[in-house]
Every structure is written in structure tokens, then in C-alpha cells.
């Protein structure tokens, strides 16, 4: 069972993740994007960006890096095999662009129990190398109880 006392706990900031141009293209194709601004450097630059722009849900890759530290935390006691993704939101201060070096820091925003199940909401702040906020990712995981 999820330990409700981890509500409010903040985990250490992750090491920087360097966003690669080919990674953005690979991710964009995987989410079926056809936008030239995801794929073509010249199209992205014509639209005013320094390089190709990541799809809005690419921030999940960065979020995942801090989520793994919670899932590994014995104190939190979250059984990943019982986890279902409940909801997800990305609030972008600016889009992620190839060349960005991003760190993420996760806080357990809330833990709610519903019978045998628990709903855990995480808030992950993603910052660039200049310590400017790029994206806030909010994710709720539903942890199914043992039957």
C-alpha cells in the first residue's frame, strides 16, 4: 500500500538530459506527427525556433526520469506492477527544443486512498540549463490494491 506520509515529499533534481534532434524526430514520428516544425530544422527556424521543436508530450521522457526515483523509493512503497496511468497534463512555459539540457524535480503533490486503491499525484518541474522553468508536468497514477 502506498505510504500516504510521502505527500509533500520532494525528490532530488535529476542529472541534465540533453535533448537530441534525432530523439525529437524519433518521438515525433512515434506519436504520428507530420508537423515540419518537429522534423525539419529549416521549418523550425523559419517559425522562429533555434532547432526542431519537441511534441508537447515529449516532456514525459524527462518526467519519467524523476518518476523512477519515486518508484525505487522503499518509503513511498509504490508497486509499479499495480500502477495504471490515471491522468497527465503538461503546462509549457516554452516548448522544448533540440539542444536543451533539462533537469527535473518531482514533488508528491497528493496521496488519496479510495478503498483498496490509491491515487498518487506527482508534480514535476522541468528546468533548462539557465534554471528557467520550461514545463510543469502533472501526473496521477492509480495504484490498484491487492484483491
Amino acid at each position, binding site marked *: 500500500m502506498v505510504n500516504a506520509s510521502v505527500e509533500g515529499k520532494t525528490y532530488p533534481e535529476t542529472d541534465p538530459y540533453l535533448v537530441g534532434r534525432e*530523439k525529437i524526430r*524519433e*518521438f515525433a*514520428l*512515434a*506519436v*504520428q*506527427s*507530420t*508537423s515540419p*516544425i*518537429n522534423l525539419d530544422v529549416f521549418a523550425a527556424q523559419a*517559425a522562429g*525556433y533555434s532547432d526542431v*521543436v*519537441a*511534441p*508537447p*508530450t515529449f516532456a*514525459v*521522457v524527462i518526467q*519519467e526520469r524523476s518518476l523512477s526515483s519515486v518508484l525505487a523509493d522503499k518509503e513511498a512503497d509504490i508497486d509499479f*506492477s499495480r500502477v*495504471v*496511468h*490515471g*491522468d*497527465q*497534463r*503538461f*503546462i*509549457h512555459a*516554452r*516548448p522544448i527544443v533540440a539542444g536543451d539540457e533539462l533537469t527535473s524535480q518531482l514533488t508528491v503533490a497528493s496521496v488519496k486512498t479510495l478503498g483498496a486503491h490509491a491515487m498518487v499525484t506527482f508534480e514535476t518541474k522541468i528546468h533548462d540549463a539557465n534554471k528557467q522553468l520550461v514545463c510543469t508536468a*502533472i501526473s496521477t497514477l492509480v495504484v490498484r490494491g491487492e484483491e
Partner: protein
Amino acid sequence: MTHINIASLEVGQEIGSIEYRLTRDSLVRYAGASGDFNPIHYRDDIAKAVGLDGVLAHGMLTMGAAVQVAINWIGDPGRIVDYGVRFTKPVFVDGVKGAVLTVIGKVGEIDVENSIVRIDITASCADVAVLGKAQARVRI
């Protein structure tokens, strides 16, 4: 970028629709691109063992594909300033037939002052909604 005159928009107006055919290949491609290698997204035996009816698409793949309807409309993925969904139903992806995901975008709210339009997205599979409250805020 596509030029959109915010004053000409109306709440409820459809901005576009997309029909995707998702296959197991789509799931494996998304697993590799995202780093989410949960085997329920490619192995029937493991999906069954954890009580699922079969292999299902990553919720994040459905979420990522669904927002393309708003991106195609505005013409710039960097203008999606806020995007959230609830995962309400799984998208089962048959090994042979795959699955068809239908996405429709409509104008949900118009904020002229801040030049933001909320696009409400419906995503369904065999007439069953798979995302709830899927909303993308787009900077015009």
C-alpha cells in the same frame, strides 16, 4: 504557421479530425522512442497475466497522437501551451487487425484577451471514448 483570426472562431466549431490505424508496430516504435518498455504494450502473455484482455496502447501514445489534431490546425507544435487528458478506457491493439483511433477537435473556449483558444479533443476507439477531458490550450 497557419493564420487564424481568433475573432472568427465559434465555440463548438470543429477544427479537424484524424483517423489513426495503430498496430503492434506503432506500439513498439513508441516504446523505443519514449523509453516505456512495459511489456503489457507488446506481450500478450504478460497482458493476460495481469488481468488485461490483451495488449494495449501506451496511454501516452494515445495522448500524443490525439493532440496532433490541434497542432495540424495551428501549424506549430510550440503553440500548445497546456495539454491534459484523463485515461478513461484502454485501447486494445489486436496483433493482426490493430486498432482504429478516431480523433476530433472542437473549439471549447475562446480567450481573446490572452489570445488563447481551448481545443476540446475526443478520442475514440470503436465508438468508445478512450480519453476524458482532453483539452489543449493553444496560443493563437
